[in-house]
């Protein structure tokens, strides 16, 4: 088996340059690559374009990269809950492409799957359709959306092996599997890294072919945005 392991987050992100296109898994703060975000904060880079469903909160997740002005553009579907983000956006320091969530997920999926474009009903008749090709299929209108691919994708999984195979837990899976495939170089951080052969091949969510670097992360905070409980 090809061994994909690197020592830690710092080594994994050491060659990520300024002005590159970066995908980051996660929905809200669930399933985000906490270790790599911390390691990126130590790098002297800026001008990043980040594809991520959300933009973190003010003091956690991608919010930390925004605060350090490392981000030029966000490609996301929902960016509430982040005052610094809103400030940079309204002042024109930050560019944002807001994309319907299903379209974002499918554009990333298409990028990893080698499908350059597809048609979706989401956004027909709205400002999202501006400048896009519209076609009628079987009496309904659809608009053409292009694939999304990145120089690097950074994902977070529950378990992984040295061959790069990944298993996710709960709703922390979200955008991670599609992003793994859509990055030229995919970095996977996992809570538990085991030797190739220890994971059940029947249970693998993301096959190792998509993953170029893998390491076991440390000190996961797994912050909760909306702690709701029943009594």
């Amino acid at each position: 088996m090809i061994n994909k392991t690197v020592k830690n987050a710092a080594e994994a992100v050491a060659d990520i340059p300024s002005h590159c296109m970066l995908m980051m898994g996660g929905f809200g703060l669930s399933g985000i690559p906490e270790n790599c975000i911390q390691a990126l904060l130590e790098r002297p880079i800026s001008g990043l374009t980040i594809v991520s469903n959300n933009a973190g909160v003010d003091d956690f997740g991608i919010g930390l990269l925004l605060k350090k002005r490392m981000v030029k553009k966000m490609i996301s579907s929902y960016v509430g809950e982040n005052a610094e983000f809103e400030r940079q956006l309204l002042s024109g320091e930050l560019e944002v492409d807001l994309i319907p969530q299903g379209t974002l997920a499918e554009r990333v999926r298409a990028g990893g799957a080698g499908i350059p474009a597809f048609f979706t009903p989401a956004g027909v008749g709205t400002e999202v359709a501006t400048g896009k090709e519209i076609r009628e299929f079987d009496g309904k209108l659809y608009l053409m959306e292009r694939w999304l691919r990145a120089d690097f994708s950074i994902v977070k999984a529950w378990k992984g092996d040295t061959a790069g195979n990944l298993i996710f837990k709960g709703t922390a899976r979200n955008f991670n599997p599609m992003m793994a495939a859509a990055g030229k170089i995919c970095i996977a951080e996992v809570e538990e890294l085991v030797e190739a052969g220890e994971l059940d091949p029947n249970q693998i969510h993301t096959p190792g072919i998509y993953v170029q670097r893998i390491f076991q992360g440390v000190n996961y905070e797994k912050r909760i945005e909306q702690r709701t409980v029943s009594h």
Partner: protein
Amino acid sequence: MLTKEQIAKRIAKEVKNGQYINLGIGIPTLVANYISKNLDVVLQSENGLLGIGPFPTEDKVDPDLINAGKQTITMVPGSALFNSAESFAMIRGGHVHLTILGAMEVSENGDIANWKIPGKMVKGMGGAMDLVASAKNIIVAMQHCSKDGQSKLLAECTLPITGIKCVKKIVSDLAVLEISPNGGFILKERAPGVSVEEIRSKTAGKILIEGEIPEMTFE
């Protein structure tokens, strides 16, 4: 006038046995509390879960298990987890029977606006555009008027549109209305103590009123 809980309770009456349902953030989330225990339905969360259960007890809180509103949740027996591309494949593919979501404005031909207030609110559409473009049945939970008394049921939406000609039914704090295939809000039920005249005066779009309009019930 209905409270938010009463709007949710009235919408819960629309739920049918065997349905897969997506509930939006806000009042729609409350609908789950009022769905009859005699019905077998499955709630979808667009980040990647079929089978949303109640909020967890304190000792069962799991940061890796949240709904689309980022709230901690549980899973019911028989749940399934999947990635977000798969999740929207089941939404666009028409496998989700019922979508319930909030709105800032609805027009008389069923257009909905709920994602952006230019110059004020830049949060994004999340999954709303995919949901309204695809669901077979869309019910909107909303306040009939804005805080300053302006009708939100209009001839045409003034805010940026989320989807066109998609809303089937509205449950507001004043009334239950259906969108006519030919355009117009068909008044079906009144909130307790609210007159047809009040609803008519607070609906800026075309309102269609035929015969006696019953007061709504909740059971």
